[in-house]
């Protein structure tokens, strides 16, 4: 019963329209104080051409989970056995990225070539001592086998595609000569210059001001339409998710606690934590009203039972603190991990 509640059956491969399916991803990190498991069984999947929003507080493991896809974890971290990272390559075959050697040639081909990434701080994403062009051309030549001149032309094309004015000038400029928004555009140009099938955007707008944020979000969306890639969008901002994502996965303490189509989740959040996140967004309808923060702090160590029970106002005494909840389906594309839902289900 519980097994069938999973959005994807663990035994089969990828369905045709699915680009990426992450199943029971667990990541361990060795620290001075011992081993911790900041990502403890993450499940989500992403359809081709769709955008999945991964949302959660800092420390929820959302960034680690996506870095694990291309083996960009810190040296002290490792993906635990049993994790599956199923991905459909451009060639059409389904592969398990978790099986790739972290420094091997295969994963290097995936990085940049099939899965590209952009990061939170556009300034720090560039090396200050090379020109923008140098760093774009590097990526193009690596994955597209073009000669220097062709690569340069393509780089200029990409820069104009992401909306940089005067790309023939920009290409020879250094990162510090560009503004934050321009740098993020250039970063997107690098990421998309190799025509990847998946773009991982790790809080790409957090460090930008609000108007630039909106421009960058629009740019990503229009490029997605044009190039037909999928986007995995990481943010702590539920408002951004509502704008960009088709589906959403809400993460808390290394687990996905709710997964489903963004519209439905935003309208009828099933998990108390999702409700908390939504209540914390300011909205035009409630100007002047108080925002409701989620009570308490993120615990320093994972509590037994449901990880959220220490901050949950609706926790069932005696149960939530002891028993870890399983995924409960709301409909075939929507599930949450909460005892309250189970109770409701059995009650109905």
């Amino acid at each position, binding site marked *: 019963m519980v097994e069938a509640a999973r959005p994807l059956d663990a035994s089969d491969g990828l369905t045709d329209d699915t680009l990426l399916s992450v199943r029971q991803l667990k990541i361990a990190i060795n620290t001075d104080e011992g081993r911790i498991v900041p990502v403890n069984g993450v499940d989500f999947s992403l359809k081709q051409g769709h955008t999945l929003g991964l949302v959660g507080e800092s420390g929820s493991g959302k960034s680690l989970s996506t870095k694990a896809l291309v083996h960009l974890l810190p040296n002290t971290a490792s993906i635990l056995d049993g994790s599956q990272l199923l991905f459909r390559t451009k060639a059409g075959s389904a592969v398990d990225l978790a099986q790739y050697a972290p420094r091997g040639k295969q994963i290097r081909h995936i990085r940049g070539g099939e899965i590209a990434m952009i990061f939170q701080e556009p300034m720090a994403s560039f090396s200050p001592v090379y020109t923008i062009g140098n760093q774009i051309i590097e990526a193009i030549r690596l994955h597209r086998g073009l000669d220097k001149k062709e690569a340069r032309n393509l780089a200029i094309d990409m820069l104009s595609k992401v909306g940089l004015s005067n790309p023939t000038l920009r290409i020879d400029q250094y990162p510090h000569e560009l503004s934050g928004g321009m740098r993020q555009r250039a970063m997107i140009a690098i990421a998309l210059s190799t025509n990847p099938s998946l773009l991982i955007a790790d809080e790409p707008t957090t460090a930008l001001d609000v108007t630039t944020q909106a421009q960058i979000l629009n740019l990503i969306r229009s490029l997605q339409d044009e190039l037909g890639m999928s986007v995995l969008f990481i943010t702590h901002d539920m408002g951004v998710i509502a704008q960009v994502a088709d589906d959403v996965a809400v993460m808390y303490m290394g687990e996905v606690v709710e997964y489903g189509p963004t519209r439905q989740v935003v309208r009828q959040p099933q998990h108390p934590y999702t409700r908390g996140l939504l209540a914390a967004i300011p909205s035009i309808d409630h100007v002047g009203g108080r925002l409701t923060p989620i009570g308490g702090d993120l*615990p320093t160590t994972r509590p037994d039972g449901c990880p959220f029970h220490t*901050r949950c106002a609706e926790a069932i005494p005696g149960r939530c603190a002891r028993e870890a909840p399983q995924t409960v389906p709301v409909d075939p594309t929507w599930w949450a991990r909460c005892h309250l839902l189970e109770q409701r289900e059995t009650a109905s």
Partner: protein
Amino acid sequence: MATLNGTNPPEEEKLSRKERREQKKKLRYYTASQWQLVWWRFRRHKAAMAGAVVLLTIAITGIFAEFFAPYSTTERDPNYVQGAPQIPMFWDQNGFSLQPFIHGTRTERDPRTLRQVAVPDPDTRIYIEFFVEGEDYRLLGLIPGNIHLFGVAEAQVHLFGTDDLGRDVFSRTLYASRTSLSIGFLGVLIAFMMALVIGGIAGYAGGTVDYGIQRVTEVIRVIPIIPLYMGLAAAFPSDWTNTQVYFAMSTLFGLIGWPTLARRIRGHLLTQRHEDYVLAAQLAGAKPRRIIAKHMLPSFTSYIIVDLVISFPYMILSETALSFIGLGLRPPSVSWGVMLQDAQNIRTIEQMPWLFLPAAFVVIAVLAFTVLGDGLRDAADPYSVSKGGSNG
């Protein structure tokens, strides 16, 4: 923290003893003063703790050298000239003894150099005694006494051997520690005061004053330091007493050593100058000197202490270098550098390698200061954990 929310009281009652202890620890942590935190962090730094212990040992044996050293710096042992170190033993071919002893010596002629040399005689034992009466002295120049930590009844014991006049190298090294460390200490003190005044002015005033002081510091810093010291030390009149040279040298180190410290203090002040609390003090009518001394300096006392500890080794090394080439302290003063002067000649080292032992003291002292400084810096820096210091 997990239970602060209080929405599920049954859970709260079930706090295990371990959890409660954890909470108490946390509470203690949150209410600890800055210095307590520094101390706790410092204590975890094993190398720095070891450095502190080593330095304390050298300092205490140096300050109370009269007690710890069996002989004075000038006493000669005519029966054991150029003698090798005598290592206390508990057993030899004649059996075991609970009281440590050394072998007696007899004089022989070296077959190669044809000089009279003292060689150990394995059949005689001289037992080492503790708290023996010896030469009279005044501890710290005040307290009279004649008890030495250890010694032997008839002959003399030389842990580090003797030099070519038959003087005890161990005793001389202890006295030398006192001179070398105290010159460094005085130097650091003078440098610190100058740095405080000059760096304080530059950092608080900023602008032209700061620029002028910066230029001057730059010129001093560009001249290689030891040649500069040598030039200034060469100017000491040859008829100066050793005490005069001693103070002149520490003043010299202070006068040349301040720029690095001043730069740090200036840097700290410049970053703090525009903080709100400084503005608040200014609005309250406090004078610049008071603002610097009462408000700004305390906010980085720990950093200043670290800087002072780190600048110590440079003073010690400078003293050693200057005295080593004969431009610093001169005999009959005893410092590490003066003692090493005897080991300048390769022939001497070949014959009496133990004359090089004071060098080990220099190296150990400098190492100890360096690890101590590193430990203090990590302890004083709240971000040291996340940065993961080079030896953390």
